[in-house]
């Protein structure tokens, strides 16, 4: 008899609480915007924060809500801006969009004290070095977010323009005065 009471009461509790959970899941659901996820996929995902938002997902959210322009992503540049505009179906005039000059971080090794702060800050593991050892930036990995510059206690890091070389140079667009 006691056994049946126990089983019965527990079953009843289970059903009731389960019901509450089920209802709560419906009512209090956090809506994940599929558009937001898709936009996030287009962004570099390096969480550099240069757009002014905390990270790529926050920027993607702002884009999805139509609160942010598509041109904010510095590492992504024109290419990402174009993709975002295409996905969002907004027209954006990128002809005057002055792409920020691509830069990379450079550590003045004479000034580096080996504090490893920049290493912790780097979201792409672009800096090598260890405690009390000189650090250096692998320029190929660096995407120019500049977060390491801010944390360096000795101002040893500066952003350097990526030089134009024979391998990357191409002819500029012809300047035409008349419309053809």
């Amino acid at each position, binding site marked *: 008899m006691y056994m049946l009471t126990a089983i019965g009461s527990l079953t009843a509790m289970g059903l009731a609480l389960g019901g509450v959970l089920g209802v709560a899941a419906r009512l209090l659901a956090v809506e994940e915007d599929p558009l937001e996820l898709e936009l996030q996929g287009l962004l*570099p*995902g*390096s*969480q550099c924060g240069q757009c002014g938002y905390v990270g790529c997902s926050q920027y993607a959210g702002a884009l999805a809500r139509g609160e942010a322009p598509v041109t904010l992503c510095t*590492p*992504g*540049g*024109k*290419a*990402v801006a174009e993709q975002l505009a295409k996905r969002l179906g907004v027209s954006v005039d*990128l*002809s005057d969009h002055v792409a920020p000059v691509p830069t990379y971080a450079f550590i003045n090794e004479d000034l580096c004290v080996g504090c490893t702060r920049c290493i912790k800050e*780097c*979201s*792409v*593991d*672009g800096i090598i070095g260890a405690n009390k050892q000189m650090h250096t930036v692998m320029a*190929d*990995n660096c*995407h120019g977010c500049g977060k390491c510059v801010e944390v360096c206690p000795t101002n040893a890091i500066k952003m350097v323009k990526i030089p*134009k*070389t*024979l391998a*990357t*140079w*191409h*002819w*500029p*667009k*012809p300047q*035409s*005065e*008349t*419309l*053809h």
Partner: protein
Amino acid sequence: MKTFPVRGGIHPEYRKELTGELAIERLPLPERLYIPLQQHIGAPAEVLVQAGDLVAKGQVIARRQGNISVHHHASTSGQVVEVTEIPAPHPTGLPQATVVIAPDGQDVWGVLPAPIADPFAASPQAIAERVAESGIVGMGGATFPAAVKLNLGIQYRIETLLLNGAECEPYLTCDDRVMREYTDEVVDGARIMAHALGAARIVIAIEDNKPQALEKITAAAAAFPEITVTPVPVKYPMGSERHLTFAITGRETPARKLTADIGVVVHNVATARAVHQAVRFGRPLVSRVVTVSGQAIAQPKNIEAPIGARVSDLIEFCGGFSQPPERMVQGGPMMGSPLPGLDVPVVKGTSGILALTALEINDRPSDPCIRCGSCVAICACGLTPVEIAARIRHDDLDGAVKLGVMDCVSCGSCSWVCPSHIPLVHYFNYAKGAVNAKARVDQKTERTKTLAEAHNARLERLAAQRAASRKPKAAAAATDEAGA
């Protein structure tokens, strides 16, 4: 031999009479030689010498890096003055790592690799290896490492080696002179290359405005049944690899494929001569024949110049300028590029140096397009330049790519024919560069994404490990307390 008519093309004034009948002259050794580390398509060579080193003629001074790269050699004996950066022979004149050599005047060959006694008994790999060691690039101007093209016989079944003696660019006569003066070397080089490629047939194609070259090459090739010498009609751009292949075989090379896909490998006649020198004598490529021409040159000449001689040395040898040139061009007038100055060196791909007058360059402002369709009619690649340029003007690069801008060979015929002087080929060169630059940016973005993901995964893993190591400690602490 039957040839197939090539679509489109133009007939510019050739002006080859300025230098066509002038025998090749050797440039006296200049005071300094400037040998850049990158004179070819591919990775730059790695420098092996430093200031103060004595070098012998033909000594390797820069070693190839990676598969698509070539060695560079000292063009004469002397001392390395410095390894420094000087303006490259490129429209921008951007700095480029260069070995500067002060010749000692001896100009004697150092220790060279032994000649390959019987090249036709040697393995194809041995020939290709020798060509690679000798720093030979495509000398028509493309400067693609020749050894890489000789190795195509491994991956593809090559039926025909097509030797390109078309020389369709106006002004240039260096290939014509090489064919006339070094006929046997060219023919022997071609046979060696055909052996390396495993090609049964050799076709030497020469535009029929070079009757003496045709006659000489035909006579020299008569002894070899595998060689066919054939005149091709005079038409620009007949010397383009794809177009010459079509003229000879009647088969079109698929877009973004190689001519090797249809069993043909094309080499320039001067490359054949360089291969002959490398295989028969072990001599690396340290000089080339350059046409110095144009109406602003006092005495136009064909000059055999050591690699690294400065353009100003060659012009001085030609008696300087008869009038101030309006534009200096390296290569031919159709596809060549403007020179940034006269201090840049002659490199392996320098086929011509032209000092052109205002009359010759005929620079005029462009007018609106009248949609006459001339550019469509003459496009040798079957494209619609007017449509493509319109898209590029409006920054619609995707649209331009869809219309085939990447298949444009930049021959410049459309710009030449345009009655409104619209710089069509400039648009295409810009678009091709911009598309490639965008691909590089996409690649970088992709790399950043991968790196960031790996970074986050690592942080998560570390956090998990820390949490895991904390638990046993806590458990251990609890047992200790209980024990106490």
